[in-house]
């Protein structure tokens, strides 16, 4: 197994998801009070470790001689698990046991640095920690690359995995295999990594490691006896995990004698030092002061600083083949630090590594500043966030109702939520997010249009650009293969929910005597809004769900217009499946009816397809709207109220003669409150 895995990774399905996070919000730990203010100084934030952070670390230069670790004493691995199965807790124990951090009660999810990560109990941004572990008299350098558990972030996962040769697959001894466990397993399996199953939480009262081990054997075909049974919380048997990492995971294939060659697998932006790139060294060595070249840009840079992450930055003089670390080169613009880029020494060009295919956005949503004067602030916040998350696609958008904004593409719903939350928490930005949509495709039939677009098949992100049926031979919608794991008592309810969402059952197996695993083919559009919430509530929280991309399929799609007194509202054009048009139209009309105030005339709120009206609600005219009494003392208050209404009137969007407040658009367009 070698670093060439990167190639394979690009082909692995990136788009999967589990929305397991909701039930597991966590109280923020004490040190989290500082999260917001310290965000821009991520290396300083972690208190228990090197308490004075970078400065102190840089003074104790090179206490570690990395040359002592030839390739065969290096192991690169990551931990993958379903949410809350204990991945980050195990990471904490591994860090403690190898002396990377001081052992204290406070070490809780040390690698989860972002506020959103701690609040939701998930990992969003992959982190790296180099551990020094003594085994049978030998010192080993174990590079733990902590990955986002959620498969919305499988782009992050796959980047991390590209630097690994093995994975620890954690399964909760109580909950057993969950949807995300399955997804994660296949991700690692397809990458041909060594997989070490770890059954965690054996200290729990209801733990049943035997049952879980047999589930693992049945579903993943890994013999029962290969499972390591631990309690990460108590530290029970964690030593065995470290031993297994050394024994069962192969060392990276890389030679120190080759010319220097490194893969940029992640990058962060630091306000003082510029771009901090996370690199995996595939060959040779690099030292401080070397001049290196980015294969992507052809530009050369000087290595200002480099080191390993333990998990804080620990500067060293050199990095050697097989090692993983960070590098500061004076890149000032994150666009320079292309993830997947190959770095090599000036004068010693190498064949570039395969890199990564850009992640494909599958969920799109409009994002607009609540107040248009916040536009520049929001723009720079989005720019900064996308620096660290290149998987978000950004397109400028503008809406007559909501003003100037963006249409952002995300890998999945959780990805979108986390992005929003980070915008709000880290940049204090207040945004309106519209209901998510998925990218449809149309196969054009008109030669003129084909010529115009340069291809027969076009992708439609904005519903207003949906081409007419007459110039299209076929519409296509994105599909996903969903995996649902649940106790069998909920099977009936789940099946009817799936059916209702145009799901087609592909498979159903019992993974033990009580739990069932179902596979369904869904249109992505059907699960993108509230499917997971419904699934969770009808199964009392026991069902888990995950999905992966399954290409496009022909679908009977139509464009639905919303009319106010016969005038179409451009912002509200929606693409729907014909079979769902009525219910979608009715729901939109109802929401509009509730949010447009009565006016002096009756307002017809209609949903139409072509010229055919499929749903209608009526906003009745005011029959009386005058304050009963108005004498001396009432005047001030009355005037204030009227002035406010007059001001509001200036901000109304006029559709025909109907005044529509911005709030009405927000109510209809935004995601429903959970």
């Amino acid at each position, binding site marked *: 197994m070698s670093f060439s895995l990167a190639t394979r990774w690009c082909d692995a399905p990136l788009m999967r998801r589990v929305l397991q996070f909701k039930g597991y919000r966590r109280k923020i730990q004490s040190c989290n009070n500082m999260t917001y203010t310290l965000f821009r100084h991520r290396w300083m934030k972690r208190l228990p470790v090197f308490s004075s952070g970078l400065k102190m670390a840089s003074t104790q230069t090179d206490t570690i001689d990395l040359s002592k670790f030839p390739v065969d004493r290096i192991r690169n691995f990551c931990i993958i698990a379903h949410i809350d199965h204990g991945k980050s807790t195990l990471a904490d124990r591994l860090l403690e046991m190898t002396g990377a951090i001081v052992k204290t009660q406070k070490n809780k999810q040390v690698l989860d640095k972002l506020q959103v990560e701690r609040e939701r109990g998930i990992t969003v941004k992959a982190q790296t920690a180099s551990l020094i572990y003594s085994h049978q008299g030998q010192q080993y350098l174990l590079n733990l690359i902590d990955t986002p558990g959620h498969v919305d972030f499988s782009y992050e996962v796959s980047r991390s995995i590209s630097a690994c040769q093995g994975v620890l697959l954690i399964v909760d001894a109580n909950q057993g295999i969950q949807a995300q466990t399955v997804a994660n397993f296949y991700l690692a399996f397809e990458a041909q990594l060594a997989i070490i199953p770890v059954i965690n939480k054996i200290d729990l009262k209801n733990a049943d490691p035997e049952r879980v081990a047999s589930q693992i054997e049945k579903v993943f075909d890994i013999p029962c006896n290969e499972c390591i049974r631990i309690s990460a919380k108590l530290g029970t048997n964690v030593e065995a995990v470290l031993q297994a990492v050394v024994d069962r995971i192969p060392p990276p294939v890389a030679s120190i004698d080759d010319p220097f060659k490194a893969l940029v697998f992640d990058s962060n932006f630091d306000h003082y030092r510029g771009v901090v790139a996370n690199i995996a060294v595939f060959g040779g060595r690099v030292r401080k002061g070397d001049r290196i070249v980015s294969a992507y840009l052809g530009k050369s840079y000087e290595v200002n600083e480099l080191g390993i992450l333990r998990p804080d930055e620990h500067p060293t003089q050199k990095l050697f083949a097989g090692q993983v670390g960070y590098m500061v080169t004076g890149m000032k613009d994150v666009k320079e630090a292309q993830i997947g880029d190959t770095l090599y020494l000036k004068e010693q060009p190498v064949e570039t590594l395969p890199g990564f295919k850009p992640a494909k956005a599958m969920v799109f949503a409009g994002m607009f500043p609540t107040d248009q004067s916040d536009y520049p602030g929001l723009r720079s916040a989005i720019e900064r966030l996308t620096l660290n998350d290149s998987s978000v696609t950004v397109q400028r958008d503008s809406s007559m109702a909501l003003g100037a904004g963006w249409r952002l593409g995300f890998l999945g719903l959780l990805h979108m939520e986390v992005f929003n939350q980070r915008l709000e928490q880290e940049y204090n930005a207040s945004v309106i997010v519209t209901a998510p949509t998925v990218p449809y495709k149309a196969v054009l039939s008109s030669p003129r249009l084909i010529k115009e677009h340069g291809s027969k098949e076009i992708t439609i992100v904005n519903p207003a650009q949906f081409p007419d049926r007459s110039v299209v031979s076929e519409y296509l919608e994105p599909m996903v293969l969903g995996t649902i794991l649940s106790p069998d008592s909920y099977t009936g309810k789940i099946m009817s929910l799936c059916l209702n969402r145009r799901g087609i059952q592909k498979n159903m197996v019992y993974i033990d005597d009580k739990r069932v695993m179902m596979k369904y083919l869904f249109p992505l559009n059907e699960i993108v809004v509230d499917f997971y919430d419904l699934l969770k509530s009808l199964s009392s929280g026991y069902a888990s769900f995950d999905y992966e991309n399954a290409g496009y399929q022909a679908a009977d799609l139509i464009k639905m217009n919303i009319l106010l007194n016969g005038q179409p509202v451009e912002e509200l054009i929606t693409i729907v499946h014909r079979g769902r048009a009525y219910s979608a139209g009715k729901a939109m009309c109802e929401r509009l009816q509730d949010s447009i105030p009565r006016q002096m005339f009756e307002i017809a709120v209609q949903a139409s397809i072509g010229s055919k009206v499929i749903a209608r609600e009526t906003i009745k005219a005011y029959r009386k709207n005058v*304050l009963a009494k108005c004498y*001396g*003392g009432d*005047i001030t208050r009355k*005037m204030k109220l*009227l002035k406010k209404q007059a001001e509001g009137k200036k901000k109304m969007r006029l559709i025909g003669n109907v005044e529509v407040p911005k709030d009405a658009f927000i109510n209809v367009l935004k995601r429903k409150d959970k």
Partner: protein
Amino acid sequence: MFVYGTYRRISDPFCNNSLTNSLIRVIKHLDMHHNYILNRKSPSSSLPLLQWPYCLRRCSYCNFNKYISREDNDHIMTECIQRETETLLRLSQVSCITSVFFGGGTPSLAHPSTIAAVLQTVSRWARLSDKAEVTLEVNPTPVGKSKLEDYCRAGVNRFSIGVQSLQDEDLKILGRDHSSHQALQTVEEARRLCPGRVSVDVMFGRPKQSVESWENELSELLRVCDDHVSLYQLTLERGTRLFKQVLGGEVTVPAEDVTAEMYRCARRTLQQRGFLQYEVSNFARHKAASHHNTSYWKGRQYIGVGPGAHGRFVPLGEGGVHREARTQTLEPDVWIREVRQRGHGTRRRIQLGHLELLEEVLVMGLRMTDGINHEHWEMFSPHLGLREVFGTSREVQELLQSGQLILDDRGLRCSWDGLVLLDSMLPALLVELERQIGPSLQRDHHTDGSPH
């Protein structure tokens, strides 16, 4: 309490103009009748301005500035009201008072000698004509009724009686302390004392009320009432007991469409019985319209005396030339302290600019069925007539075409159907007014600086 009076020197509608301009107009309008008003309010009015801040109990729907008195402090209140009346009359330099209104709280809790003392103070500092309208709000309780005659002797010549409802059960829900029988008796006594000068307040949109029961109730009331009726829709005010009850589902109030129907029926019935509507909630026959209240809607100046009272006047006494919106301190105890210390309890003074004044003239004027006539508007806006301000707006044109608004040789007013929807039309009119007046202010300013 309110007083109408004749102006001495400056007519405030022109305060915003350059000195030369205003002097000319002062001369031109010196002979015009301008009015001053002293404090007033009605029992179900929604902003606190009152003469007598005390009530025996709290009505469930009332968010007014009122206090349940713990001790007898009549003489202190009397002293302070006299003192503040004196201060504000001097400040306004009003010369002749044409109306006084005693509002509440429950002013009929005040001793008749208090009313007499206050009226004496008024006449000491300004001319109080024999014909001046002096109104007192009355709670129709046996105690209130028994004092009516003494109030008349003290100088009151018009009563406004808070009947509210003729259903005893409803009066209980509303938290009123009288019965319908007592109300009818009070009305009868008041009519005996001041024939043709008694008004009744009645409320619709009450919990559980139906259109039919409202029609019956109104007919019953019209059999016994005098020549003036004020019609109020119950409004749920935040913070009141009733508001909480409705929010909590204990009590339901009629839906919007039902109250609209109640209002429609009432207007029709009153018209059939010879009561002319002269304002959104006021109806009179035999020309019994309240002189005092009409002054508000015509944008005249008034002085408010008492805790929480509001006033609008130019403080000529200290050299002021702009009309001010003034509010007196709310809490009676604090107000008393302030009046004793500095002669008045004015808490807030806001100067009204040209646009703000016109906005009030527009909003208040359109509440009257007669609307705003051209001469009246010109007093406040000599440069821009009604047609110039509103004639070009597309939205106003639509309102005119739909027949809800009328702009003709008389002036600007709502049609019979349009009056019901006034609050939907006002924002559009205000937007237009601001658009037209905004730049003209600049022009005025410019002429101001030009040498001539």
